[in-house]
């Protein structure tokens, strides 16, 4: 009976909820954009952002808790991330501020992930069935089940981490691609302008000298 209890508790401990958001958006100069998220108590929150395009690729980032007090404040950075444990339950706000910029519109990629112990919503009912089922099983099968589920949990978490890293690398690649495409077109433009100016300058020099010696003899 005791082992049954223990395995129940273990099982409960393994169940958790992960909530993920990954978005990209645009901010005009002198504007700021805020995103709000409902977060439960004692959740591990992970956020990160990258500026993909625009100006000096910098943005202000601010996290506030449901009461409005600042948790994290970054000024004019191009990438950043912050992990924290939520103490209060409620709407956390994640604000991006482009007000220091005069002309450049910024494109930003933002990832949010929250990891909460316990099951919520529809899955809480399913937990009921698990409990009922386990009560019928022998102790040995329960141990088996618990070991299997802990392996699956680790596997799931690892896949999750890989996905997270992949999202981050994808955003980096987009940002680098934007930079190199802009460099490429700037070089083309510069080459054309410079060639034009060289040609114009040499023609102008010759024409000017000719004019001096043709119209008046003021050598």
């Amino acid at each position: 009976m005791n082992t049954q209890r223990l395995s129940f508790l273990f099982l409960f401990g393994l169940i958790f909820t992960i909530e993920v958001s990954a978005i990209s958006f645009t901010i005009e100069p002198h504007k700021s954009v805020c995103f709000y998220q409902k977060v439960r108590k004692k959740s591990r929150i992970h956020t990160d952002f990258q500026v993909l395009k625009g100006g000096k690729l910098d943005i202000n980032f601010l996290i506030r808790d449901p009461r409005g007090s600042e948790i994290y404040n970054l000024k004019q950075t191009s990438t950043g991330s912050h992990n924290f444990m939520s103490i209060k339950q409620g709407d956390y706000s994640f604000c991006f501020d482009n007000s220091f910029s005069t002309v450049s519109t910024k494109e930003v990629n933002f990832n949010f992930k929250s990891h909460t112990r316990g099951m919520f919503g529809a899955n809480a009912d399913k937990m009921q069935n698990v409990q009922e089922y386990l009560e019928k099983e022998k102790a040995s099968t329960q141990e088996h089940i618990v070991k299997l589920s802990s392996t699956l949990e680790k596997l799931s978490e690892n896949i999750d981490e890989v996905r997270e890293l992949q999202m981050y690398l994808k955003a980096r690649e987009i940002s680098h691609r934007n930079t190199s495409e802009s460099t490429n077109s700037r070089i083309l433009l510069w080459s054309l302008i410079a060639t034009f100016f060289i040609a114009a300058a040499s023609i102008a020099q010759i024409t000017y000298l000719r004019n001096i010696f043709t119209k008046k003899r003021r050598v």
Partner: protein
Amino acid sequence: MKLKNLLFIVCLLGLVTALQFDIGQREEKCIYEEIEHDSLVTGDFELMDPILLHPEFIIYNPQKQVIQKKQTNQPGKFAFHTDQTGDYHFCFSTKKPQPSLQSGTIQRVSFNYKYGIAARDYEDIAKKEHLGPLEREIRKMQDQVLEIHTDIIYAKGREEAMRNTNESTNSRVMWFSILSILVLFTTGILQVYYLKGFFKKRKII
């Protein structure tokens, strides 16, 4: 298999929370994401209390054409299949004339979307293929690993394309520098010869 009936919710990978943001009058706020072709995209939106504005919800494809338009009077859902890889924009727009309200009115909107594996309904797949709950979760993980693998190969291709762009930029800079030195040199020599001839003709030299 005895475990077949056991509901193991080991992980809820791909569950997406609603992100909320504010929209004011006469503006369009967009969220976009680069999505591969042949992906299922689903999502939903809702206006949070107090409901003061009724923005229109529009989805644009990478060519900036409208895929779907929806009114937000009721909480709504959307779903579509992507036919090309590119940036898909999900926009809330209050550009259409709204009943005149105080300037500075803002409306909080809740929105979320998922694509790829996360958008697939595994309950449905489990029923069709007669999978137990544990097997369903394993199947989900298997599909996710396959998706990760496909994405990595795609990212590798893109990195190669970017490397080509960079190398072409590099060689363009080099050739331009050499060319400009040659042009300046040639122009200088031509100028000198022309002026020499010119002055000789005018019998100055």
